[in-house]
């Protein structure tokens, strides 16, 4: 026995057995880092890996993945639901949560085996981390270094407001702001980066300003109301005030924060907090497919390389691959497990496909992707894609005919009034482009969230706020939830509100919702 062992080449394995410890984690991390930086060419924020228990994972779920959050019942609701699902075994917990911050914090669960910890480290601490650091949306829209400070500020501010103005009043205001959260982002202009000091200062200034003055717009607007004013002058004044108010405005929370006539300064600040958090998550919503695809691709490549180098055993590799395959499982549309396209599956498949196109292109690829086919630089190509696309444009650019065939994608159209759904396109020569275009539109948030704008304010009359919903494809807003959201909006605006649903192509008003003023 002893001689046989001596003959065997020295084992290069980083670890053996399923149990993990901090020493192993560190060894594995170093080996992964070596591959990620030198072979894949990733560029990452410094990493911070935190080991947590399943209960702490549930806590993290409840505060939408952020390490700290202000208090609100809705987080408790989320917690109660997740906990119930978990306790009844209906749902497992994520193996990890990763936070877009610098240092990039990855939570990993203590229940994971060492093989899973390896996978999760590669997935979160390198895959997601690289994406957060390099993708243009995150670079433009979020501030990884400032977010934790800002959250601390937000939490303290909410606590402070609760002490001063009562839990109930704060809750009412937050409820209302949460209802409008999806409409609290700047979609086109870049927001300035968060700076904690400025943020505090600005809040202080705002308080002082409100103590010293009152809103200028409303004063000039009301002066303008003279019965014998000529109509032309009135129209001019109207245009002038609209310009001053910055209308039309699609960021509802921003408008309320700046312009709502009857909000207290602390309420404006609460609206701002919610708006910032919404803005922070906006890039994540637009890049789910790419983000998960990138992380999955990275862990797959890294695990394969670790195995090839003999650093992990066959058993570990198989365990990781087993988990990997269940993550990228895509059931067919008629499967009871079907729940939309799995972003892990599609994202990973597209990135593998790009690698294939770069290395072993066929004629079809050369025709469809002349600029990358056979360029022999798969990682460089992918890094470029990760940095410069979001889901919508990524699909539009890189979804290949081969993948459409592999997934057997097809497009169905459901038209109101028709007695059946019609298959419009399938995976054939004529269908590729149309399927690609249609799928890309599904990933376009601007088309997914209803397009709602503040169009006008009746500033000379009853201060009624006029919103418009641009109706595409004849799909109106869901009536009960729309009503509920408008009630919340009324809580902040406090005067009358009218929401008109206007057909985007014909400008015809299809439906009007109204909420009376609260005086």
């Amino acid at each position, binding site marked *: 026995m002893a001689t046989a062992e001596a003959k065997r080449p020295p084992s290069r394995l980083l670890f053996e057995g399923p149990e993990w410890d901090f020493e192993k984690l560190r060894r594995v991390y170093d080996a992964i880092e070596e591959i990620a930086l030198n072979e894949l060419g990733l560029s990452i924020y410094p990493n*911070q*890996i*935190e*080991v*947590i*228990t399943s*209960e*702490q994972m549930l*806590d993290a779920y*409840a*505060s939408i993945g952020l390490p700290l959050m202000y*208090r*609100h*019942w*809705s987080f*408790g*609701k989320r*917690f*109660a*639901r997740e*906990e*119930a699902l978990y*306790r009844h075994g209906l749902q497992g917990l994520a193996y990890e949560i990763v936070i877009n911050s610098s240092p990039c914090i990855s939570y990993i669960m203590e229940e994971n085996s060492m093989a899973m910890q390896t996978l999760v480290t590669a997935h979160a*601490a390198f895959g997601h981390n690289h994406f957060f650091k390099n993708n243009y949306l995150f670079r433009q829209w979020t501030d990884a270094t400032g977010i934790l400070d800002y959250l601390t500020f937000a939490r303290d501010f909410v606590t402070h407001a609760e002490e001063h103005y009562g*839990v109930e009043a704060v809750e009412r205001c937050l409820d209302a702001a949460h209802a*409008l959260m*999806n409409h609290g982002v700047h979609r086109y202009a870049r927001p300035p980066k968060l700076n904690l000091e400025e943020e505090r200062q600005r809040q202080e200034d705002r308080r002082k300003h409100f103590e010293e003055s009152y809103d200028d717009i409303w004063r000039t607007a009301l002066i303008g109301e003279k019965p014998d004013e000529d109509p032309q002058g009135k129209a001019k004044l109207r245009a002038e005030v609209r310009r001053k108010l910055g209308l039309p405005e699609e960021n509802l929370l921003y408008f309320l924060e700046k312009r709502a006539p009857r909000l207290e300064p602390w309420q404006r600040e609460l609206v701002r907090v919610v708006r910032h958090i919404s803005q922070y998550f906006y890039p994540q919503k637009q890049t789910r497919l790419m983000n998960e695809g990138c992380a999955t691709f990275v862990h797959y490549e890294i695990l394969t390389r670790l195995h090839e180098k003999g650093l992990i055993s066959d058993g570990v590799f198989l365990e990781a691959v087993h988990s990997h395959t269940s993550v990228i499982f895509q059931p067919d549309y*008629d499967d009871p497990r*079907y729940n939309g*396209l799995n972003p892990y599956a599609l994202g990973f498949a597209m990135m593998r496909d790009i690698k294939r196109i770069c290395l072993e292109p066929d004629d079809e690829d050369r025709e469809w992707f002349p600029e990358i086919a056979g360029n022999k630089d798969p990682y460089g190509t992918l890094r470029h894609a990760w940095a410069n696309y979001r889901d919508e444009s990524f699909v539009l650019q890189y979804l290949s005919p081969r993948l459409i065939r592999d997934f*057997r*994608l*097809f*497009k*169905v159209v459901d038209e*109101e009034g028709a*007695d*059946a*759904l*019609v298959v419009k*396109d*399938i*995976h*054939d020569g*004529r*269908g590729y482009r149309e399927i690609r275009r*249609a799928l890309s539109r*599904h*990933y376009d948030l601007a088309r997914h*969230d*209803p397009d709602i704008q503040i169009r006008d304010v009746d500033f000379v009359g009853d201060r009624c706020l006029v919103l418009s*919903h641009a109706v595409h*494809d*004849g*799909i*109106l807003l*869901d009536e*009960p*939830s729309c009503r*509920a959201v408008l009630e919340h909006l009324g809580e902040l605006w406090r005067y009358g509100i009218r929401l008109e649903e206007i057909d985007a192509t014909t400008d015809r008003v299809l439906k009007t919702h109204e909420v009376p003023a609260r005086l």
Partner: protein
Amino acid sequence: MNIIDRRPNPKGKSLANRQRFIDRARGEVKKALSDALKRRKVGESEGGEKVSIPSRGIVEPTFHRSGQGGRRDYVVPGNKKFVVGDRIERPPSGDAGGRGSASPEDGGEQDAFEFVLSKEEFLNLFFEDLELPDLVKTRIKESEATQLARAGFSVAGTPANLNIVRTMRNSLARRISLHRPTRSEIEAIERQVAAALAADDDESAEQGKLDLEKALRRTRRVAYIDPVDVRYNRFERIPRPNTQAVMFCLMDVSGSMTEAMKDLAKRFFLLLHVFLTRRYKTVQIVFIRHTSNAQEVDEDTFFHSRETGGTIVSTALEEMMRIVRERYSPDNWNIYAAQASDGDNYTEDSDRCSQLLGNEILPITQYFAYIEVGAEATLRHGFPSPPTDLWRTYGQIAAQHRNFAMRKVADQTQIFPVFHELFAKHRENA
């Protein structure tokens, strides 16, 4: 790269939010609870409760597009047989194909929201507006026990209570402020002297010796620990309310008590027990069953064995008094009693009962509840039954004593309402 072990961090970061959520949904949670209670056994209330509440009041609405109408397209995987132009029957219920869109709409509201209440949350809601009757407290106060509690520090005390941390802190502060040389400073001077001597530098050696002497003198003058530094932990005796209770369950087990009646009684006893457990650290239970004589038994025997014989209630009351005298001095125990019976009693015994209750038992018990089970069963025939012997007797007692209550219970669903009525916070004392 950092690896941080967060596991020791405090758990339950979400508890505050969870509490807020439950507060918000309180009305609906309570309703769901009372529905759930009707179905299940009270004996199970030890565990948590799964409740399902309508999502009204806890919805988080957002603007989203309606699931109906208009023109929409879906890109879905797994085409097996379709070619362009194929028509697919619209799936029933207007559900867009059972296929979901490629990016499912958020904010779709579930009709019901299901989650699990912990045992504590459950009991809090369950007994929310109930309170132990605030009776006979005056006498209980006299016999309150006391316990020692920390009450800051004092400058005098026994050595056993010396607070070393405080003492040393004061000592350190004093030593610093009075410039008492530290050991290392003295050693430094000594080294200097030694170095000077070794270098034959007499002048600095002399100077060093002077410094050293000065330092040592100062050390002697400024004590390391001075009496003014010393602090002792101070304790105070504070009165402590009694935190132990004993609960007597008295039940008639004669042949006239059916299993159903016993079951009702059992439910009431269990409820009372859970309720007392919430208020007192320790609650002991004594089971006394009686026919024409009474004996203390264990729980199983109490509920499950049957006896034959007449019914003499006073024997149970006597047995209870005997046990109180032997084991549960009213000075140390809060005494509760619940009696269940079908109301039968040996007619001559009634006087004895009311005497025992009025003169001996009620003065020492916190609360005595009498439940007459199955008493209204005869109503079904259209005639209210005449009050039973025991009911008449106890009726007179109830009029005189505030810590005595009596109710009739005919079926399971009345148990909780009756219990609620007995212990409701602002109940009117008859």
